[in-house]
């Protein structure tokens, strides 16, 4: 079954589950339902970044006929990652306003996502600064790998070393998910839906890159 068919079924189902089936979050009420959108887009933003890094590794070591268009795919994944990280910051700010009373608190996890956003901005700055030079794909690939190697430091280590205001439902010292069963299932469905949305958009962008390349080759 094609990815968009599953997406067209699962995304509406996830939205219905998030608003109608899952119970309200304790102390936050219905406003807490934003968890079913904030957490999945945050997961996708990090996953898109990691996929960009992995594609960059493949590009540096195996590019050629075996894996064509790797640089373009890596760039496309970064473009989508940027979109999802912006969505993460927006939904996180709304949630912070509801929970903690202000849109931004510089909690370690908020800081981590801002650093990820800045990494994406830096990547696009470097990409545009290098223009159409022959080494652009190679240098931006190195930057993505370099940045990817640092993700564990600011996405996982810093928020756990320094005290955080964030609830810790997924990863905690008990290694337990502290959510009700229906909330857990809704969050899972939403995470899968957003991941499928990312892959669907990613496949469209890759097809566009192939078409652009073919048109470019024909003009040359």
């Amino acid at each position, binding site marked *: 079954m094609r990815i968009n068919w599953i997406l067209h079924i699962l995304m509406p189902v996830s939205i219905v589950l998030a608003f109608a089936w899952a119970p309200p979050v304790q102390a936050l009420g219905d406003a807490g339902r934003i968890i079913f959108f904030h957490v999945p887009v945050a997961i996708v933003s990090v996953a898109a970044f990691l996929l960009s890094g992995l594609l960059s590794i493949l590009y540096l070591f195996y590019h050629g006929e075996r894996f064509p268009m790797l640089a373009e795919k890596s760039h496309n994944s970064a473009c989508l990652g940027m979109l999802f990280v912006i969505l993460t910051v927006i939904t996180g700010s709304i949630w912070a306003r509801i929970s903690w009373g202000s849109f931004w608190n510089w909690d370690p996890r908020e800081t981590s996502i801002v650093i990820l956003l800045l990494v994406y901005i830096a990547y696009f*700055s470097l990409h545009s600064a290098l223009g159409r030079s022959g080494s652009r794909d190679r240098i931006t690939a190195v930057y993505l790998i*370099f940045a990817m*190697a640092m993700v564990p*430091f600011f996405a996982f280590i810093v928020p756990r070393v320094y005290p955080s205001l964030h609830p810790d439902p997924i990863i905690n010292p008990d290694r337990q998910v502290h959510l009700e069963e229906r909330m857990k299932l809704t969050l899972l469905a939403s995470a899968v839906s957003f991941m499928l949305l990312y892959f669907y958009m990613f496949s469209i962008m890759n097809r566009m890159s192939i078409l652009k390349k073919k048109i470019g080759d024909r003009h040359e």
Partner: protein
Amino acid sequence: MILQRRLSVKGGSALGSELVRNIIKDVRVEFRSRSALGVALVFAAVTTLAVSMVSGGVPFEPKVQAILLWLIMYFSAMNGLAHGFTREADQGTELFLRIHSDPDAVYLSKLIFNISLFMLVQCVVTPVFAVLMQVDVKDTVHLVLTVAAGGLATASAVTLLAAMVAKAGGRGPLFTVISLPLVLPVLWVSITATGRAISGTAAQGSRDLLFLLAFSGMVIAISFILFRFVWLDE
């Protein structure tokens, strides 16, 4: 092609002699012009004086002092840290270096040069800042260790990025834009640890130092592997 070159890595002694030769060359070039160090120190002195003058001699809180110290050190060293590679590109010596030196030796020599430069800037800036800003340090040993570990982590993180910026035409603001997000975790931890050292509440001191040293080790290892992809043209 790159992998083939990677397989023909020179022996340890040859690499060591190339490394020493490149470091001596960089130090001599810097000693002749003193551009990187001179600009960094003048920037640091002017900024510290300006902050001290505006504050009117009233000491800030430890956290604010730590923030100012690291911002002054970071931005004063930024120009110098990129200079190692941009100078090679500007003076047309990059191709010569690429032909005659192993990329590993080039990377390690630039890394050592950058670490030394940053430490030198820190050695001058930290005492001057402490005197002018009336910093009352409660835990001097921890402050020295934090400043040294933070400097090591910062210089390690930006060396590879400096090579990338040189390839992009050496545009000044670009170096700050691409390096700041990757150095932010280091600055964050360093500022927190420095604030604790100044106020004498460094109970988590070893954890901060461990973070900075682990970060430096990881960054140097990754940069060492990736440098040849930036340095060598296909």
